[in-house]
């Protein structure tokens, strides 16, 4: 029993590490492609007269898009495994084929979204299409490979009953949800609206006025990926890594003691995170202070 738990903890740590890399790659990929909610600003800018060279492939939210890609990768991998192909090879072939699908998606999405802005004078830049698509594909490859590998560990080594493709849907959607929740504000507010005041939200009146110029020449989405990979990407990675690690760890370790063990430990974690969140909230209120003095009624 002890050996099982030790092996389980090792696998859990491995899955958590894979999830952390997946989260970071996913957020960077989505920021380069403007897949998250800030796509609305990329789309709005030309309508306000701000023509730009930002990539935009948002024709689906991050969670459904990643649900599709990871499920596809996991499905192909599962099919190859059923044919008796080596695990690593199956994972790589499955991910490569999925990445090609992602590339087709990114190309058609960019052309469709940007072409719809033609009447506002926004050109379709072929050099942007050539250089950004391959970079998003590279990041998507990492995100999909690590997530499918993590799903494989859950299914084959930890004994989760779901087949690989179903785990792909579940964790693909969760990956997109965690990555977009954590990474979107950093890309949307901190990068697209770098010209606005730090430490305050973007006023509604500034909508559409995204930053379009870089240190040299016009800004493109590779600059945005470089910027968000410093904070938004790693934070999304830690967020998704924690979700996967704690979800697995509490089950692997405490299920041996009692079937209620993982549930009680999970509730304890929820309370701990609530306390941490409250600490962060009050820390911000004390440290940054109010924007205006309190108006007494």
């Amino acid at each position, binding site marked *: 029993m002890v050996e099982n738990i030790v092996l389980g903890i090792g696998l859990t740590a491995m899955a958590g590490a894979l999830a952390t890399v997946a989260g970071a790659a996913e957020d960077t990929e989505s920021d380069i492609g403007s897949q998250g909610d800030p796509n609305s600003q990329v789309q709005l800018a030309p309508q306000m007269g701000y023509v730009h060279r930002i990539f935009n492939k948002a024709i689906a939210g991050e969670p459904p898009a990643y649900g599709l890609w990871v499920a596809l990768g996991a499905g192909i991998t599962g099919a190859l495994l059923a044919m008796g192909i080596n695990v690593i090879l199956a994972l790589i072939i499955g991910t490569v084929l999925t990445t090609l699908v992602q590339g087709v998606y990114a190309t058609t999405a960019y052309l469709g979204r940007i072409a719809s802005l033609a009447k506002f004078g926004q050109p379709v830049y072929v050099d942007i299409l050539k250089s950004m698509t391959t970079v998003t594909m590279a990041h998507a490859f990492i995100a999909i490979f690590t997530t499918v590998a993590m799903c494989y560990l859950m299914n084959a080594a930890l004994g989760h*009953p779901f*087949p690989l493709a179903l785990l792909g849907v579940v964790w693909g959607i969760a990956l997109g949800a965690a990555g977009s929740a954590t990474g979107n504000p950093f890309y*949307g507010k901190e990068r*697209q609206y770098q010209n606005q005041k730090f430490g305050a*939200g973007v006023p509604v009146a500034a909508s559409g006025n995204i930053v379009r110029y870089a240190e040299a020449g016009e800004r493109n989405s590779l600059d945005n990926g470089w910027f968000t990979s410093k904070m938004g990407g790693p934070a999304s990675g830690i967020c998704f890594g924690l979700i996967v690690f704690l979800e697995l760890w509490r089950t692997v370790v405490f299920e041996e003691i009692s079937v209620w063990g993982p549930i009680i430990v999970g509730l304890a974690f929820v309370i701990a995170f609530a306390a941490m969140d409250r600490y962060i909230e009050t820390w911000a209120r004390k440290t*940054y202070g109010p924007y205006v003095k309190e108006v007494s009624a």
Partner: protein
Amino acid sequence: MSVTPKPAGGVGMDWMSMGIGILIMIAIIGAVYIWFPPASGLMGFLDPSNIFMALIAIIVGGALIGIGVHFVPVGGAPAAMGQAPGIATGVAMLAGGAGLAGLFGGAWAAAIEPDPGIWVVCMAGAVGGALMMAITCMFVNVIYVYAMGIPAASGKAKVDPITGDTQTEYKSQGTEGHGLPFISFVGGVVGGFLGGLGGTLIYYVLLEWVYVDRLLSDALGAPAVANVTPIAVSLAGMFAIGLFLVNAVLAAYNITGTIEGPHDPKFARWPRAVVATAVASAVCGIVAIGIVAV
């Protein structure tokens, strides 16, 4: 031109459409009652492992998902610019992420031998969803506070109903608020809990009360349990995910765009969503049951 306003929906009930929906639901429940009559007597009726009770449980699970989605604080695109409080993604997507993470935990608990029972499985799913939302909500505030230097402030409440913190003076100029005040954090956790609970309830009843029994007894040449379980698990998982997404999207339409959590005036729309998700779950439930029971 500024941000296009979202279509606003009131909190009132459209009794005509509600009535039609409820009639459809009653018709489906009645059809299943006639089609698969429970054993005679009160105990037979209350016996959980009959198909009629499975349909009722699916409807309850769907309604739980519908209510849960209303608790989740979702700010959409404005939240990504620090223009509105909430989590910067779509309602259905976030609820889906949390509910499916819960379903993962619930399905794992359901695989324990011997069967740990419906309460353990459903609580495992509920806590899985709540934990996913707790981590995600905390990281939203981590990003806002430590990466962007913005404190949390609600746009819909002057005072946080739980902590009593004043909100108005922490809103930056020209915005409706930003980040996740504590009430929104709690709303997110409760939403994840209810979503995980509902999704796992649907999974459990489909698996244990419908698919395993039916696949064992039907015209598949009396297969062994070990051969049937993977098929039953896959079918139940697929239908649970499908039902989850149907209900989450329906509830998202009821919310129309963004919601801050239980203190948001839009939260009062939840009774509509309960009726709508119950009807949709009944329609989807009869398909999920009929695929093996016919």
